[in-house]
């Protein structure tokens, strides 16, 4: 299945991309997506357990992903 990953702020700087479309086996979890992303050059500095949102709702690492999901990697927030 295909999942779109979004990277913001400091995570975008680490990963080197604002968006990545990645192929994952059906039934993969957020945790497995994080591991895949962290294998990319420069992305080892990404935390092992970053906050993520799946389809714009905060989600845990064991959330099972579906084809077409949008997963945002969310650095510690600093609004206001």
């Amino acid at each position: 299945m295909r999942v779109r990953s979004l990277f913001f702020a400091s995570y975008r700087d680490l990963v080197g991309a604002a968006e990545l479309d990645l192929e994952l086996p059906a039934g993969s979890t957020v945790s497995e997506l994080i591991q895949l992303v962290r294998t990319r050059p420069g992305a080892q500095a990404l935390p092992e357990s970053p906050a993520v949102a799946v389809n714009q709702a905060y989600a845990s690492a064991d959330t099972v992903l579906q084809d077409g999901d949008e997963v945002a990697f969310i650095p510690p927030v600093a609004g206001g």
Partner: protein
Amino acid sequence: MQHVRRDADGAVLLFAGVVRDEDRGRPVAGLTYEAYEEMATAVLRQICEDVLSSSDIGDVAAVHRVGELTVGEVSVAIAIAAPHRDAAYKASREVIERLKREVPIWKRERFADGHETWLDGTTPGPTAGD
């Protein structure tokens, strides 16, 4: 403020977050805000709905700017209208505190020498009501 006021409201409160000129002793030229816009809008709307339904207030409105701001510019505004001021003060505080913990917005400091750095933030997550 006019947007939130109804005739039953005796208190209208406006909180404005403003870009400051220093951070921990270092002079700041400005801040650049970035947002995961669709989610930030949805989360901020949910925070406002939660506060409206759990407080004795009449209405709430909140706006956050994105992009480059200089010292003195308003980054966030929260307006509350309520029959009485006690509920207005509490609701205003709750909106800004939750915004700072939950809304996917980040800020980058711009220093006078041109150096820029992402500000450390707060690990986000849902709170009760999500």
